[in-house]
């Protein structure tokens, strides 16, 4: 899943890094301006650590193996704050395990965090209104979708760097189908638990004072 140093052309790396800096800035800005930003930090730390460790859980496929990512859950719970949270996880993975690399940190962050944030935006309003069982189902779909989008982003990066898109996309997508299934199940279980035990974890701004609207569910200021 992680793209390595030297695999991509320079233009792709520069554009990816610029986007990643923008995403990081956006995430930190949201965290700073959010009324309950302080309470988001422990959740962000836990999800960052989850992402960091999930990469060590391997799903064997033939002679090769792929690992879990858990970006969908981060996007659902954290919204834009997933950018800084996943950035920390990625940086430490590069330093400790040699996954990816420092020069491609930006690209990897975009590939992993952008689908997370998009999935979070699309599914969080639906999940907030749903019953726990339905929320679990939606969470599962969101978790699987985040992986699917990530594989497409990776394939797109490879395409822009000169590799044949269809071959690369097929390879990355097909090899991650088991990951999608497992992450879907894990995300569904997590969402079920969150809805039962601590539903306020999913809400960004509203905490009684602010009125719950679809707008601030999206993490936008109303």
């Amino acid at each position: 899943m992680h793209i390595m140093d030297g695999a991509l052309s320079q233009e792709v790396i520069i554009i990816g890094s610029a986007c990643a800096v923008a995403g990081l800035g956006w995430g930190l800005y949201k965290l700073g301006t959010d009324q309950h930003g302080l309470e988001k930090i422990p959740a962000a730390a836990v999800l960052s650590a989850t992402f960091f460790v999930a990469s060590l859980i391997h799903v064997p496929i033939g002679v090769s193996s792929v690992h879990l990512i858990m970006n969908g859950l981060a996007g659902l719970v954290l919204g834009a704050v997933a950018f800084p949270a996943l950035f920390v996880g990625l940086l430490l993975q590069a330093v400790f395990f040699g996954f990816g690399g420092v020069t491609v940190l930006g690209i990897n962050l975009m590939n992993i965090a952008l689908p997370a944030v998009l999935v979070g935006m699309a599914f969080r309003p639906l999940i907030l209104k749903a019953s726990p069982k339905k929320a679990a189902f939606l969470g599962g779909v969101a978790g699987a979708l985040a992986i699917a989008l990530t594989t497409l982003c990776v394939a797109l990066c490879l395409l822009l760097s000169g590799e044949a898109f269809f071959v690369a996309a097929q390879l990355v997508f097909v090899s991650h189908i088991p990951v999608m299934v497992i992450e879907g199940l894990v995300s569904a279980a997590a969402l079920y638990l969150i809805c039962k035990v601590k539903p306020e974890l999913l809400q960004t701004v509203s905490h009684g004072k602010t009125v719950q609207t679809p707008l601030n569910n999206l993490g936008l200021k109303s």
Partner: protein
Amino acid sequence: MYLTFSLRIMVFISLIFAFILSLPVPSAFAHKVIASAFTSGEILEGEVGFSNGDVAQDILVEVFDPDGEKIGEARTDAEGFFTFRPTLPVKHLFKADLGAGHIANFSMSKDDILRVLAKQQASSSKASPVQGHSEAREEASAPENRPAPVHVLARDGRAQAAIPPELQDMLETAVRNEIRPLRREITAYKEKNDLQAILGGIGYIFGLFGLGFYLMARQKMKALRS
């Protein structure tokens, strides 16, 4: 009722995790590429593979000089090994593209290349003594390149026996063959992620977020006070 349901889900998930973890997964990672090159008498030998032990079969390895000029190429065999015969006395940079974003970059220093070239020269001058005159002079100007007989030193420092170059080559080949599996094991060991690294990483994460928490809380307190 609901509690038991969520409990059941938790048990189910942990069973899945246990199942995944119990599968015979190689300890390292498929998406990390390892590659290395080493001298092997008159040629260079190299190995390209994935860090979980998978070899990279039939992969093109391109060789460049430090200026980025391509000076040759090689192909890996069924075991991920390749050989390359250097001709230029410069640092060699190797690049292998394994597809899907997997790139291996590795190099061999000029000193090692010079040693290999000296061996080549020695054996070619042995093979054709007619053209040996000029080469002999060259060798004399670069005495460190000559494969002089190796003197085995006894404890007191006196030379005891001289090993002829042929035997030296045989010894080197034998030692190389013997340490090859060892080298693989060391590479695999280097790739291993132990619990220390994992716990250390988690510690860093919590520490970093704790710092962020502290800074944000301090800001809030300041805002409250003023």
